């Protein structure tokens, strides 16, 4: 029998993230949390998934010009795939550093753009891949192992 961690996660739901919808930003992540609550996870896992989703969603709203967030589920893990067709991240190593930010005053007024988004995503993920190139958007794949 295949151990659960080797099973390929299946798509549970695909959400669309609207561009520059600052008032609505975050609602996809709340929907993700509610979706997984129904499946029945520990509060701690749910929190980690929701934080990753929320920070990634804010990035897509603020920088990515809209995009999508898909939730995949395997018995032992949740995989979030967040994609946009935005300008891409020119220097990913720099963007991963806490405190590095290219946020506008409008983003900061919302309480984001302190250069903590990607580090927060990394901290709450068990595996993280980011594919990005200038002019071709960004794809983030984060996995959270269920405990």
């Amino acid at each position, binding site marked *: 029998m295949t151990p659960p961690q080797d099973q390929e996660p299946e798509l549970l739901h695909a959400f669309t993230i609207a561009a520059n919808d600052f*008032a*609505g*930003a*975050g*609602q996809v*992540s*709340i929907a993700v*949390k509610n979706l997984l609550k129904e499946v029945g996870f520990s*509060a701690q896992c749910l*929190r980690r998934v*929701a*934080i990753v*989703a*929320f*920070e990634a969603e*804010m990035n897509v709203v603020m920088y990515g010009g809209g995009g999508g967030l898909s939730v995949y589920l395997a018995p032992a893990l949740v995989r979030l795939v967040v994609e946009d067709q935005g300008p891409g991240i020119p220097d990913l190593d720099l963007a991963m550093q806490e405190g590095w930010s290219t946020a506008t005053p409008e983003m900061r*007024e*919302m*309480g*984001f753009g*302190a250069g*903590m*988004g990607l*580090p*927060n995503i990394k*901290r709450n993920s068990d595996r993280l891949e980011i594919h990005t190139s200038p002019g071709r958007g960004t794809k983030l794949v984060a996995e959270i192992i269920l405990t």
Partner: protein
Amino acid sequence: MPVKLAQIASWLQAEVLSGHALLEREVLLAHAADMMSDVLAFSHPGSLLLTGLANPQVVRTAEVAGIRAVVFVRGKRPSEAVTLLAQEFDLPLMTTAYSMFDACGLLFAQGLRGWSLPEGRA
């Protein structure tokens, strides 16, 4: 130290904006921030959040991070849309005229702690 929201409202002379029926709820510790990423990174579930921001992201951040109630400082007042969103999440909101520093100081003096002190994590 677990503290009831009704007690917090009294200490801060705060006006309750949503969650009037939830004031028996207890918070375990407190976190103060205007940056929502800071709340997501460092706050602990079961906390009270004190903030000077009053936009929808505060309510969504609270829901994601497991914050039990939000106090807006220096008389900040969210829009009705934000209050309605908080009601949807059963998130009590209150507003106090005290500044961030003074509101935090008053709560600390009464024994409420943050996560960075050993007694806050106890």
